[in-house]
């Protein structure tokens, strides 16, 4: 596969950032190959993820960006075996060399929380309203670590301190509704960190928070990542968010990757018209933070049928006949830069 040589050239293109561990000498922490997810829905199929591939090295940050419904959540939950029974998952996802897809639920449970952990979009609904937050953290700790009650509680309080929750010893005994939205998300992060995961997936972790809190939680996640040396997958609909922190960006559309590059390279030379549209839609200060993105006219495609041509073609201003007839392959077209487009944007004099 052409993508196999990727890490080498990708690393080379992260110019001016020499602090990264050299990927060529290590195995990727996570290697996703040709991931497909479809849902049974009545007598129809929903093609939610269609041949997604990427790899992620320890300690790195990957941003997965795309409009709502592009398959970001489904593709990441597939890795953790958290999809409903109506989902069919195929492909491969190797974590630390071990294949995750096809593991039994019991085998998968050894990895959930311990190796891969997740922070979700809505901290209010993601915490159990009838349990004290402390117990929700110790539950995660004691599921994986051989600690007794008291030791687990001390660790939980330590984690609450780590996520910078004020007066952690009191907060331990409170219920979720006694905390603010930002505090709840801190608790969710504490839960995710309970057993020292190697990979943290933050699925729109800041999207339901107000702007100020958003920035604080972002900063916290990045600090923690540096401090604990985890890999981080940051899922968002906001390309602007990715610009500020990620090492690498994958842009998804209709369940597939349509562009992938190091952050630096992506912002310097956007190739895919969809990414360009996203870039133009980055919220400006004068616009309220979560107003619907005026990405580009038209709606995301119907996922119940697989299109013959490029899925973005109906909304694309550069589309021609080829785009309707054949789907462009997602390939490494420049060193460290993948895209799927027959007529990519030209920034004039690069390459």
């Amino acid at each position, binding site marked *: 596969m052409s993508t196999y040589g990727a890490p080498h050239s990708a690393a080379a293109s992260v110019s001016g950032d020499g602090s990264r561990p050299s990927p060529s000498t290590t195995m990727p922490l996570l290697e996703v190959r040709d991931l497909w997810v479809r849902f049974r829905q009545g007598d129809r199929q929903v093609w939610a993820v269609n041949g997604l591939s990427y790899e992620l090295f320890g300690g790195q940050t990957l941003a997965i960006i795309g409009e709502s419904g592009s398959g970001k959540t489904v593709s990441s939950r597939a890795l953790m075996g*958290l999809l409903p029974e109506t989902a069919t998952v195929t492909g491969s996802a190797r974590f630390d060399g071990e294949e995750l897809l096809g593991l039994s639920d019991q085998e998968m449970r050894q990895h959930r*929380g311990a190796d891969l952990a997740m922070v979700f979009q809505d901290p209010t609904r993601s915490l159990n309203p009838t349990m004290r937050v402390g117990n929700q953290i110790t539950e995660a700790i004691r599921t994986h670590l051989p600690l007794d009650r008291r030791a687990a509680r001390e660790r939980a309080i330590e984690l609450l301190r780590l996520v910078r929750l004020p007066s952690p010893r009191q907060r331990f005994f409170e219920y979720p509704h006694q905390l603010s939205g930002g505090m709840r998300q801190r608790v969710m992060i504490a839960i995710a960190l309970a*057993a020292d995961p190697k990979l943290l997936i933050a699925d729109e972790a800041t999207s339901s928070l107000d702007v100020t809190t958003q920035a604080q939680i972002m900063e916290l996640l990045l600090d923690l990542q540096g401090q604990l040396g985890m890999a981080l997958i940051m899922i968002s609909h906001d390309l602007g968010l990715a610009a500020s922190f990620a090492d690498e960006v994958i842009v998804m559309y209709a369940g597939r990757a349509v562009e992938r590059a190091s952050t630096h390279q992506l912002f310097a030379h956007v190739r895919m018209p969809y990414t360009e549209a996203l870039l133009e839609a980055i919220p400006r200060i004068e616009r309220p933070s979560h107003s619907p993105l005026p990405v580009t006219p038209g709606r995301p495609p119907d996922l119940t049928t697989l299109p013959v041509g490029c899925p973005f073609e109906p909304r694309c201003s550069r589309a021609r006949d080829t785009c309707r007839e054949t789907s462009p392959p997602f390939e490494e077209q420049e060193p460290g830069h993948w895209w799927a487009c027959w007529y990519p944007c030209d920034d004039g004099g690069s390459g």
Partner: protein
Amino acid sequence: MSTSTPALGADRRVSHGLARALRSPSLRLIGRRLAAAIPVLWGVTLLTFLVLNIMPGSAAQQLLGADATPEQVRQLEAELNLDQPAWVRYWEWLQGVVTGDLGNSIASGQPVTTIIGQRLPVSVELVLCAIIVSLAFTVPLALMAARRPNGIVDRLSMVLSMTGLSIANYVFALVLVVVFAVIFPVLPAIGFVPLSDGLLGNLRSLILPAIAIGFPLFCFYTRFLRGDLVEQMRGEDYVVTAKAKGVGPWRVLIRHAFRNSLFGLLTIVGLNLGTLIGATVIIEQIFALPGIGQELLQAINNRDAVVVQAIVLLLAVVVVVANLITDLLYAVLDPRIRYGQRSA
């Protein structure tokens, strides 16, 4: 501390506590609900009174039997104060009730409070046993059914529930008697052994009636709880969080989903109490249990308006209070209500 504090301080503390209690939302809730219940209760007594008056026959006639001459009946009616217009008697009875006097039975002359005092404990015990029996089977079965929706346990429990919900409870009671008292004579078919004569005999005499009342409840509760658990396991984000921690499926079901289902279950049990009490009237009759339901039927037969009205009023009060207690328990158990919502 209390020795050095003069009585005045303690006094002030008490009155302060009282003032705070009066301002507390739950006390105000109780007050409002009780006030709203008064017209309902009054309406219930009025309706009972009207129905009793439409029914043919009088208490004096019932007491004297069919052979009595009209002269004898009239004489007894005068003795029992039944010759006054019906609404006057109702008005006098109502006045008595407001002052706490439920009057005396027309048939036996005993104070109604005495009669209720004798009969009520039997019914209360029966109802409690029925609820305990039904919940004791509901919880494990619903958990097993929800663990694997459409699995074998789920399907069997569905069939069982549908059977139980479509069979009349007196028919089911007769089946129980035939099976456990006639074919396999392991339990008494009828009669009641009071608690003072030994716990074992007491419970043995209540098992069949409790099951007869509890089985349809069990079916209903099981359907509800199973549905609620499955819905949570499929739809709630905190269930996903628990799974993402690596917590095992049983633990997710019990510690996360069931814990949240308890509130709904509690409400169902509380709201269902009226139906449950209705069932005891028939079941007490079938199993010859000297409870309040049996007394009610007897009093209706006797056209004993005083006793009928008192019992109907009592049952209405029980239902109103049970609903109120359900709401309060909810508030005590659910941390969201206990601490008052504080939003971000």
